[in-house]
C-alpha cells in the first residue's frame, strides 16, 4: 500500500487501517443490501419471478466504502478535503443522471451527511465530539427551542388558523394539514401515557379504532349525528382503556408494552372477524359526514332537510367548505388536547404522572395510588384517541380494520419518542418530520420509506432522548433567570 502524503505538515494518514475499516463496512452493507435491495420479486406472466439488480448493489457498496473512508479521513484530520469531495459528490448526484436511481439518492444524502460531519469538524478543529459534549450542545438547542416555543406556539396556532385562507392553500394542502393535525392530536394524546406517565403503550391505535368504529356504527345504525357521537366515542374509548387497564397496569416496563401490543391486535382482529357487526375486512362504508354543528350540511342540495351551508351564508357552493370545516374541527380538537396537557402538568395528577415516570417505588412511599394514576392516564389518553378516531371516520367516510394496524401505533409512538418524551412542541416537530416529509417527497415513492428509516436512525444516534427533550419545571419558586442556568 502506498501512503500518499496529501499535506506534509499533517500527520501521515494510516491508509491500511482506513481501507480495512471501509472494506469491513462495505462487507456489512453487502450482507444487508444483497437480500434487501439486490433481489426484487416481479410479476411475470408465468408467475412470480425474481429479478436481480446487481448495479444497485454495486452502487450502494461503493458509496458505503467511500463514505466510511471519508469518515476515517475526517478522523485522521483531513476534514477539509473530505468536505470538498463529499459536497462534489452530493452535487454530482443531484444534477447528473446515474445508472441507478438508488445510487443517486444515496449519493445525495450520503454526500450531504458526510459533508455536514466534515464541515463541523473543520469549523471546530476537532475530529470528534464526545457523546457528552454533543448531548450538551443539543440540550442547549432544546432549551432554546423550549424558550422560543413560548412565542413560536402562538405563532404556529395563528398560522394554522389562517392556513385555509392563504393563497397557496388548495385542497391538497388542507388535506395534508388535516392529516398532520390528526397525527399531532394522536401524538399529544399518546404523550400523556408515554411522555408524562412513562408507560410504553404499543397499542394506542386500539383507542383510535374504538373511536372510529363507535362513530361509524352509532351513525350508520342509529343515525346519530357526529356531534352526538363524539362524546360517546370518547366514553367508549375510556371504557376500553379502563378494561385494558385493570388487568394490565400491575405490569411494568417491557411486560406492559407487550400486553398493550396484544390489546391493539385483539381489537383489530375482533374488528376483522366480527363481521356481522363491523363488516369484517370490508369495513363500514357510507359513514355520514359531519354537519355544521347540526345546523347546516355541506352538500350542493339538501338531503336531510337541513339547510345547506352555502345557502345559509350566501356563498358559492364549493366542495372545499367541508374540507375547511373538517380542518377546523381537528385543529380545535388537537388544541383541546394540548391545552389539557399543559394544564394537567401543573396539577397534582400531572405531577404524579411525571413522578411515576421518574420512580414508581418512591411514588408508593408517598402514598400515591399507582393503579389509579395509571388508569387515569390510560383513560384520558384513550378518550383523546377515541375523539381522533371518530374524526378519522367522519373524514374518510369509510373505515376498515386495515387503517388500524400495528404500524399506526408504531408511527404515533415514533412521533412521541422522536419529538422528545413529554415535549408538546417536540410532537409537532416530529409529526412534520415523520408525516410531513414523506408526504412532500411523494415523487421519490420507492425511497420514501428508506429515507424515513434513515432519518429515524440518524435522529436516534444523534439525539437519543428525542429532538426537543428539555423539561421545564411546572412550578418555580424563584423568578426565572435564564434558561439553562438551572440545568447545571
Amino acid at each position, binding site marked *: 500500500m502506498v501512503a500518499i502524503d496529501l499535506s506534509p505538515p499533517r500527520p501521515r494518514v494510516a491508509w491500511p487501517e482506513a481501507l480495512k475499516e471501509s472494506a469491513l463496512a462495505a462487507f456489512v452493507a453487502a450482507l444487508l443490501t444483497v437480500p434487501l435491495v439486490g433481489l426484487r420479486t416481479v410479476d411475470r406472466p408465468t408467475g412470480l419471478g425474481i429479478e436481480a439488480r446487481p448495479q444497485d448493489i454495486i452502487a450502494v457498496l461503493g458509496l458505503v466504502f467511500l463514505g466510511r473512508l471519508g469518515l476515517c479521513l475526517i478522523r485522521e484530520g483531513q476534514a477539509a478535503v473530505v468536505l470538498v469531495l463529499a459536497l462534489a459528490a452530493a452535487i454530482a448526484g443531484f444534477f447528473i443522471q446515474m445508472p441507478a436511481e438508488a445510487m443517486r439518492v444515496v449519493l445525495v444524502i450520503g454526500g450531504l451527511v458526510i459533508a455536514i460531519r466534515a464541515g463541523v469538524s473543520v469549523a471546530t478543529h476537532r475530529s470528534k465530539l464526545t457523546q457528552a459534549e454533543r448531548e450538551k450542545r443539543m440540550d442547549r438547542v432544546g432549551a432554546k427551542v423550549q424558550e422560543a416555543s413560548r412565542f413560536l406556539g402562538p405563532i404556529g396556532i395563528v398560522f394554522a388558523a389562517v392556513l385555509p385562507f392563504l393563497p397557496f392553500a388548495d385542497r391538497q394542502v388542507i388535506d395534508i394539514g388535516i392529516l398532520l393535525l390528526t397525527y399531532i392530536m394522536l401524538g399529544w394524546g399518546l404523550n400523556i401515557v408515554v411522555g408524562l406517565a412513562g408507560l410504553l403503550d404499543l397499542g394506542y391505535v386500539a383507542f383510535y379504532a374504538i373511536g372510529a368504529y363507535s362513530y361509524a356504527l352509532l351513525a350508520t345504525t342509529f343515525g346519530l349525528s357526529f356531534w352526538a357521537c363524539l362524546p360517546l366515542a370518547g366514553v367508549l374509548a375510556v371504557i376500553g382503556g379502563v378494561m385494558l387497564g385493570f388487568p394490565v397496569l400491575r405490569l411494568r416496563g417491557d411486560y406492559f408494552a407487550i400486553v398493550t401490543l396484544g390489546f391493539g391486535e385483539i381489537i383489530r382482529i375482533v374488528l376483522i372477524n366480527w363481521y356481522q357487526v363491523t363488516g369484517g375486512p370490508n369495513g363500514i362504508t357510507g359513514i355520514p359526514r359531519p354537519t355544521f354543528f347540526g345546523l347546516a350540511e355541506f352538500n350542493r342540495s339538501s338531503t336531510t332537510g337541513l339547510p345547506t351551508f352555502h345557502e345559509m351564508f350566501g356563498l358559492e357552493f364549493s366542495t372545499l367548505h367541508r374540507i375547511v370545516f373538517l380542518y377546523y374541527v381537528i385543529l380545535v380538537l388537537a388544541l383541546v388536547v394540548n391545552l389539557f396537557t399543559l394544564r394537567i402538568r401543573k396539577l397534582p395528577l400531572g*405531577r404524579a404522572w*411525571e413522578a411515576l415516570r*421518574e420512580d414508581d417505588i418512591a411514588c408508593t*412511599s*408517598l402514598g400515591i395510588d399507582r393503579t389509579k394514576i395509571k388508569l387515569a392516564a390510560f383513560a384520558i389518553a384513550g378518550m383523546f384517541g377515541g375523539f381522533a378516531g371518530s374524526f378519522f371516520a367522519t373524514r374518510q367516510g369509510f373505515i376498515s380494520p386495515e387503517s388500524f394496524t400495528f404500524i399506526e401505533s408504531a408511527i404515533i409512538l415514533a412521533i412521541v419518542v422522536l419529538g422528545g418524551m413529554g415535549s408538546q412542541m417536540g410532537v409537532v416537530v416530529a409529526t412534520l418530520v415523520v408525516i410531513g416529509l414523506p408526504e412532500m417527497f411523494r415523487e421519490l415513492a420507492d425511497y420514501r420509506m428508506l429515507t424515513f428509516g434513515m432519518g429515524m436512525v440518524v435522529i436516534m444516534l444523534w439525539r437519543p432522548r428525542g429532538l426537543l427533550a428539555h423539561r421545564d419545571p411546572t412550578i418555580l419558586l424563584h423568578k426565572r433567570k435564564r434558561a439553562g442556568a438551572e440545568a447545571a
Partner: protein
Amino acid sequence: MSQTMMTNTAPLLTVEHLTMRFGGLVAVGDVSFAAQDRHITAIIGPNGAGKTTLFNCITGFYTPTVGRLALRHPDGPNKGKEFLLERMPGFRISQQASVARTFQNIRLFGGMSVLENLMVAQHNKLMRASAFSFAGLLGLPLYSKAEKGALDLAKYWLDRVKLLEYADWQAGNLPYGAQRRLEIARAMCTEPVLLCLDEPAAGLNPRESGELADLLTFIRDEQKIGVLLIEHDMSVVMSISDHVVVLDYGRKIADGTPHEVKNDPAVIRAYLGEDEGEELPPEIAKDIPDAARRAGEGA
C-alpha cells in the same frame, strides 16, 4: 436526649412477632419491639441483619409472613385510631396511616425540580383539594388556595434543610448530601406521624452527619413525631437515639437505651465476633480489646 420512657402511654408503633421468610431464608425472625412517639428509635445490626426487610414490612413493600404491626395515632384527626400495617397495601400506609420513609439508595424524582419533588409528596392533599383535577382544570380558587398552602409547607422544609436557593434545580443534579436532605424533606411533606429513615447518613461526611443529627432531633422535638432510624454511623445513632434495637441474622439480640445496648455482650459479639477466639494471630488478638472498648464508647 429525653431518656424518660413514656411507658404509661401506648407506643406509637408496636411490632409483634414479625417474621419475614423468602423461601427457606428467614430474613426477619420473630422480632418484637415498640417505638414511642416523639422518640428516635434506632435499628442497628451488621450487614444482612434484616434491618431493611423490617422497614419494608413496616412501610408495606413486603407483606410479612407472620406478625402484627400496629400503629396508633397519638393525636391529629385519627387520634387513638389503630392501623394494622401488615394488612394495608403499600400506598395506603403513607396515605392513611401517615408513615413516611426514605430509601437506602436515594429515590428522588431526578428529572423533576426540587420543589416539584416536595409538591408530589403532597399529592393526596392536593388531589382532594382539586377535586381529582376537575377544580384545578377549571382554575377554581379552591385549588389555588390549597396549592399555596402546599407551597408554603414545601418552602418551610426547603428552608429547614437549607435547599431554598436550589428550589428550581433538577433534583438529580444536586450534590449527594443535598439529595439525602431533600429526601427527608420530601418524606416530611407528607406530614407523617412516623418517619422511617433507611441509612440517612450513608455517604455523608462528618459535618453533614452532624447536621443530619440536628435535623432529626429537630423533627423529634419540634415536629413531635416518632422517628425510626436504620443507621451504621454509630456516632449519629448513639448521640441522638432514645432507644436502640439491635438485629443480627434476622433476630433481635438487644433492645434498650444506647447506653444499655453498647455494653450488651451479645451486641459486642455480633459486631466483633466471638472473643473466645482460640488461635487468633497475636497482632489481631492484641487489637480486639481495644476495638471492643472503642465500639463500647460509641466511636
